[in-house]
């Protein structure tokens, strides 16, 4: 029973990581850049929820506002900071992204101070199935994140725009020949990634109400790890990687002896997987250009 509970916990944590990892992997696949500031979008989402909740008292209005604000922020950052660097060296882009990350963290600190804010969203009762007892936020996160993953998969697989995203990620020039506006596809990718980050911020606050300006940093790095484990650039890869990291985390935290080393274990697994499969679990081997 305990095993099953831990597994469900892990799937739920993994769902949150997957939401974040998808943003990393889609932006990497389509804009060919590592958006180091992606984790901080979660934090911006968190503060948006905090503000709206304080003003109106409606947590879901907070979530909607966070999604909207993060989408606008993600798209604006792409336009202002990353787009002018298209074609520049990857290092220049990475350093810019790190700069954006610090800018977001410092801005949040200036506006809200450095003391943690408490954001109590909604209390959801635990669910009992026989001897199985699962916390309410776990159920909500698990179900919502898996529904979102399913919807995203359907969107990418079965819509024309979704297929165009894959086309741009594979060959931007050829996609442009088809009449696909690759800049618009990149903007859309940032928008989707940022929306998912806002949702992840909501899930995190459901689980633990403490909000700080660095709340996105560690989950960001772990979700990036998840994306690399799954195969960076691969959408199903980010889902698998995120869920895997979530399950490992849940089981590792369960044992008092191992718990302090949870982060180390996750990064160790990254190293092992990259040694065995350098392109990640579902990653493609890099094809030579013809």
């Amino acid at each position, binding site marked *: 029973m305990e095993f099953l509970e831990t597994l469900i916990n892990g799937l739920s944590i993994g769902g949150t990581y997957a939401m974040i990892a998808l943003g990393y992997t889609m932006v990497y696949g389509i804009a060919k850049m590592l958006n180091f500031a992606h984790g901080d979008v979660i934090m911006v989402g968190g503060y948006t929820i905090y503000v709206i909740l304080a003003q109106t008292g409606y947590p879901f209005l907070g979530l909607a506002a966070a999604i909207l604000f993060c989408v606008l922020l993600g798209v604006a950052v792409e336009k202002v900071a990353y787009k002018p660097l298209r074609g520049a060296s990857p290092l220049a882009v990475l350093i810019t992204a790190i700069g954006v990350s610090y800018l977001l963290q410092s801005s949040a600190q200036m506006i809200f101070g450095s003391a943690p804010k408490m954001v109590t969203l909604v209390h959801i009762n635990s669910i009992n199935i026989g001897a199985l007892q699962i916390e309410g936020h776990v159920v909500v996160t698990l179900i919502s994140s898996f529904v979102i993953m399913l919807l995203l998969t359907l969107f990418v697989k079965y819509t024309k725009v979704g*297929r165009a995203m894959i086309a741009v990620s594979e060959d931007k020039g050829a996609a*442009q*020949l*088809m*009449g696909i*506006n*690759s800049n618009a596809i990149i903007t859309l990718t940032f928008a989707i990634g940022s929306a998912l980050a806002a949702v992840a911020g909501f899930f995190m606050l459901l689980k633990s109400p403490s909000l700080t300006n660095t709340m996105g940093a560690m989950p960001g790095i772990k979700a990036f790890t998840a994306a690399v484990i799954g195969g960076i650039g691969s959408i199903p890869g980010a889902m698998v990687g995120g869920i895997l990291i979530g399950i490992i985390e849940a089981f590792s935290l369960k044992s008092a002896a191992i718990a302090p080393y949870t982060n180390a274990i996750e990064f160790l697994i990254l190293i092992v997987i990259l040694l065995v499969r350098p392109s990640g679990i579902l990653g493609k081997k890099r*094809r030579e250009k*013809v």
Partner: protein
Amino acid sequence: MALLEVKDLEVYYGVIRALKGISFKVEKGEIVTLIGANGAGKTTTMQSIIGLIPIRSGSVVYNGNDITKTPCHKLAKLGMSQVPEGRRIFQELTVYENLMMGAYSVKNKSSFKDDIEDVYKRFPRLKERKNQIASTLSGGEQQMLAMGRALMSHPDILLLDEPSMGLSPLLVTEIFDIIKEINKQGTTVLLVEQNAKKALSIADRAYVLETGSIVLEGDAKELMDNDDIKKAYLGE
């Protein structure tokens, strides 16, 4: 007025001057071929016309519109389509999805079914493999897919960059027959080839490109009898 007119086109890669101010025209209904050795600048010409490589100076006028600075993704809607060098089909997508991408710029959705049937009729092998992932197609099938994909946008002019590359002689003949047929049905063709013999045999007119400059131009049949051409490009 020519359908496509390139004037004094200059293109640089960094400090390398890849096109040294070339000019040529393609009239409506023609097959015009651009022949030249490796590195002459054929692909550079094709890609700069369609906006994939920036133009340093000169102009490209298509259908009376200056498209020198028009972004690539707007040209499909204007009736210009390209089968790029190396085919560049979308490897992760199925045959059907590649054709769907070819129709991306077509706003009228109702014609899609007919268009795709037309492509299948022209390339029956694509129909048999419509749900196959494109990366698993043979080289010849990939070329057919690249051509089918380019036709999905109803081009007025089709730019073909080395359609014969890597194909068996039999398949080359088949592909060239298809090019002729597409042209007969009303599509103007600009054809880049290293296989000069084949290209001249189906073209109306030809230009010879050498290290970024056009050194010879004329009627395709006449160029085939030109001694310099025979020696340099036809291996006679």
